[in-house]
């Protein structure tokens, strides 16, 4: 067996993929070839050194990590809060507006204003519906139009965020190469 073959077997041995017969061949070759034996010894020394210097994390890792996690969990915002706050603000605004109208002009004026506001919203909705009918010839498609608009609004920031993450990852692997 040549030195080249012995080197291949040595690699397979280091990968833990060598069978008994090849292992015997390799060991026989190492006994008669000082060059290959030296390579084998060098690699064994590397493995021993890596094993000897296997770093152990400080004992304090778990308590520190768990302490930080507990403190973060205490500060954690409830999941529903981001949805509740804008809705509550909108509702408060509407109530304040209605109360103001009531205080200024009486109950009928307040009802009138509320009706006017609803009419404006309804008018806007009608315009979108008319526009979609004009475009697609079907009233049901205005829903599609609105949903597409919303998807785009959400999709653009998501796409930009994805690009940023992707750029970050590829930048890292370029550095490793």
């Amino acid at each position, binding site marked *: 067996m040549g030195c080249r073959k012995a080197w291949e077997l040595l*690699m397979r041995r*280091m*990968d833990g993929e060598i069978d008994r017969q090849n292992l015997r061949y390799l060991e026989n070759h190492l006994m008669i070839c000082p060059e290959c034996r*030296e*390579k084998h010894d*060098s*690699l064994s*020394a*590397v*493995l*021993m*050194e*890596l*094993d*000897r*210097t*296997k*770093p*152990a*994390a*400080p004992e304090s*890792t*778990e308590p*520190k*990590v*768990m302490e*930080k*996690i*507990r403190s*973060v*969990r205490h500060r954690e915002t409830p999941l529903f809060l981001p949805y509740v706050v804008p809705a509550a603000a909108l509702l408060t605004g509407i109530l304040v507006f209605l109360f103001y109208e009531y205080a200024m002009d009486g109950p009928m004026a307040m009802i009138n204003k509320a009706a006017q506001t609803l009419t404006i919203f309804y008018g806007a909705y009608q315009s979108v519906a008319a526009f979609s009918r004009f475009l697609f010839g079907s009233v049901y498609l205005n829903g599609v139009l609105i949903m597409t608009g919303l998807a785009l609004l959400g999709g653009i920031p998501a796409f930009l965020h994805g690009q940023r993450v992707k750029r*970050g*990852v590829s*930048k*890292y*692997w370029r*550095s*490793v*190469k």
Partner: protein
Amino acid sequence: MDDMVQIKKCLAGDGEAFEVLVTRYKNLVYGIALNLLHNKDEAADVTQEVFLKVWANLKRYNPEYSFKAWIARITVNHCINLNQKTRRAAAAAWDEEVVCRIAADKGLPEEELLAKEKQDRVRSAIESLPEMYRLVVILFHQQSLSYDEICQVTGYPLSIVKNRLYRARKMLCEKLSAYHGREAGKEEGLWAAGRHGSC
């Protein structure tokens, strides 16, 4: 599978189950961080940061892949980002430790000194490998990650990972053989000088 049980517990709100995962993988994270940052304090800080990151992103973990590889990947990315920010010189980083080691070595018996010298030589051969080779050697031989897991950590195909490990071993052999060659040359020179002197 055992990891998955702990992860499910964590996702169900059992924060203490995470401690089991920290205990299981802290040496892996610390080992990778130390090898990439070359600083014990920073490696300890990074270990904590990585686990906080893992905790925060646990929902995103894909169980199709190995949890060990996922943590290793987060650690490697974190360390490289940190290295890029500080633009440290990797080679000079062990200096402080080497100085401490030399100071500690004083007064050791000769045999121990020789053994230590050999260890230092092997260590410096490992350290002198380019990062992309060193990382694969550390992950495979020190942290016992499989080829598949290394592929998941680095994002490279199996052929590239195998090739890098093969080359890394070859480089290590060449570096250490060159040293042995120089030592042998020195010994021969001394022997020849002694012989010449005696004649």
